[in-house]
């Protein structure tokens, strides 16, 4: 069968091309058959599952896949590499974005004007395609292009509601991400100047050879890469765009922004740090210590800021800043246990944070409440949503049997392996702080007295559609399952870590 052969040989690029193709079909479909847009967006994801299934089967049986775009071999052509790390990101992105999309097909009809609904899927699929491209690319310039696609489409899905907060948040994100990509492109230029290659593997070999002649070039490039990716990943001192963006955007946008978009940049940064830069450089410049300090600040201040928020989505956004700190903590520890914890936290946090944002979105959909104080007594009226929220809150704090516990355990063991006990204290303090801002919501929702005796009318609760409750239930079940049986995802992560270190 030639058709099967084509899929088998080209599934790496077909994965990304199919997303791009479907996303550009949307504007046509939107004019012709408006109601098909959502179905086609889901179809794109189902198609992606087929390709990812093929890829994972090949990675597990044959090892790393090197795909040459257009048949040009690496130093000249663009190369896609699917190793365990890329595969792990592909699985995370496709699963979580699929569930968010299912939720969004109902929620978006409520939040957006019907005119922009079809175009929203264009941006959404572009964003998912660009993130998958970032996960598999092995070429500097290709990486830059995917970063810009991801940035513009992410700004698009923030500003799609086009009310004043959204537009302003989107502009802020666009400016800061322009700084980020600018820094990244400048450092690509610095590395190209001395290495003469754009392919990661070839550039790494060339840089290794000339590192002693041009140490300054490499140092400046490393600094610019770090700034660029830290802005994009919203680590503490450069996080200013994140709280505004998800809190004003539609809930599916917030979920994908906080859950996936900021993670993919940490993975690309990790890839560059370990694959491209020579190891001797890290003796010259303590970049891992800097990452550790920034991540500790991020964990601490993200939690502190989250405590004082009144808006539920804004609080979740600040919590994301704290959680991205854990991922960077894993990178900064630079030993296998810590890195496993960091990567595991990417997967776990993608699940729990998108679940929390979706349940916040479901609360807003059903009742219109955004303020944390108004949520009293809502738990019994919306058991599925608040149940999911409770599981998410428990996972955030890191209670055993939830997936958050496993990744925090690995991170804590990693700090002990690296003999950095201070960061263990940071993890513990942050867990207490997480309790401080998640549990009052849960307790209030289930046991709080709703103030009916004041003559206020009871909160009107709309019925939750099936397409909104099913993703919440699946994500909640996922949080529990991967908390009890983490080995199913650790199989991939441990091999990825083995290959990185």
């Amino acid at each position, binding site marked *: 069968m030639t058709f099967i052969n084509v899929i088998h040989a080209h599934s790496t690029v077909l994965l990304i091309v199919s997303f791009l193709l479907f996303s550009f079909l949307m504007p046509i479909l939107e004019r012709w058959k408006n109601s098909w847009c959502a179905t086609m967006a889901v179809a794109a994801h189902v198609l992606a599952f087929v390709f990812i299934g093929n890829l994972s089967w090949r990675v597990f049986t044959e090892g790393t896949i090197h795909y040459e775009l257009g048949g040009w071999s690496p130093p000249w052509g663009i190369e896609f590499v699917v190793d365990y790390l890329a595969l792990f990101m592909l699985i995370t992105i496709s699963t979580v974005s699929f569930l968010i999309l299912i939720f969004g097909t109902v929620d978006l009809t409520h939040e957006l004007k019907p005119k922009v609904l079809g175009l929203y899927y264009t941006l959404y699929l572009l964003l998912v395609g660009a993130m998958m491209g970032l996960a598999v690319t092995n070429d500097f*310039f290709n990486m*830059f*292009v995917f970063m*810009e696609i991801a*940035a*513009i489409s992410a*700004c*698009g899905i923030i*500003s799609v509601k*086009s*009310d*004043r907060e959204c*537009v*302003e948040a*989107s*502009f802020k994100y*666009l*400016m800061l991400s*322009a*700084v980020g990509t*600018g820094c990244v*492109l*400048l450092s*690509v*230029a610095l590395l*190209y*100047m001395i290495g003469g290659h*754009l392919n990661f593997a070839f550039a790494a070999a060339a840089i290794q050879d000339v590192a002693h002649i041009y140490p300054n070039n490499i140092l400046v490039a490393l600094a610019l890469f770090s700034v660029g990716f830290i802005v994009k990943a919203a680590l503490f001192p450069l996080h200013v765009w994140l709280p505004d963006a998800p809190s004003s955007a539609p809930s599916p946008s917030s979920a994908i922004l906080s859950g996936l978009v900021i993670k993919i940049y940490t993975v690309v940064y990790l890839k560059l740090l370990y694959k491209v830069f020579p190891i001797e450089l890290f003796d010259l410049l303590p970049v891992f210590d800097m990452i550790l300090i920034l991540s500790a600040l991020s964990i601490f201040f993200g939690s502190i800021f989250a405590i004082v928020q009144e808006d539920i989505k804004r609080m979740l956004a600040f919590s994301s800043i704290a959680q991205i700190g854990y991922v960077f903590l894993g990178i900064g520890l630079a030993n296998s246990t810590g890195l496993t914890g960091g990567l595991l936290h990417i997967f776990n946090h993608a699940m729990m944070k998108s679940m929390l944002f979706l349940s916040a979105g479901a609360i807003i959909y059903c009742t219109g409440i955004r303020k944390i104080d108004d949520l009293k007594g809502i738990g019994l009226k919306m058991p599925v949503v608040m149940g999911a929220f409770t599981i998410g809150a428990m996972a955030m704090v890191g209670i055993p049997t939830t997936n958050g516990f496993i990744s925090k355990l690995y991170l804590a063991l990693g700090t002990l392996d690296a003999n950095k006990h201070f960061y263990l204290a940071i993890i513990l303090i942050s867990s207490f702080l997480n309790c401080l801002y998640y549990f009052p919501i849960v307790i209030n929702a289930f046991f709080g007295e709703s103030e009916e005796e004041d003559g206020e009318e009871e909160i009107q609760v709309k019925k939750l559609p099936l397409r909104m409750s099913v993703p919440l239930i699946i994500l909640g079940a996922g949080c529990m399952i991967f908390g009890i049986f983490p080995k199913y995802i650790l199989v991939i992560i441990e091999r990825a870590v083995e290959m990185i270190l």
Partner: protein
Amino acid sequence: MIDFADVAMRLFENMYYLVSVILFVIGFHTMLTHSNLIKKVIGMNIMDTAIFLFFVSTGYVQGGVAPIIEPGVEQAYINPLPTALILTGIVVAVSVTAFALSLVVKIYEHYGTLDAEEIMRIRSTES
């Protein structure tokens, strides 16, 4: 002892890099310190242009010509790869600028001003 003449000579030889770094700093400074949103977009463009100049000049060879190879003629050619890449970069920068300007139009519609501090003030008095 630093030989200033030597330093000046080397700076002059690497003039493109020097100018692009100066432009980059100008753009960065404009972008972060000015409160006018249009000026921020202009700053972003200056910064992007500086990076493009830097990238293109990495491929320049002294005395080289465009790499259109004529059989039988021996001469130095410049590296065409950075130029080709920057063509893509310019397209990306144009689309980012267009998007940013459209957002500025929307912000002006909502707030009636282009000043970021004024917008902050309006938002803080309302909420």
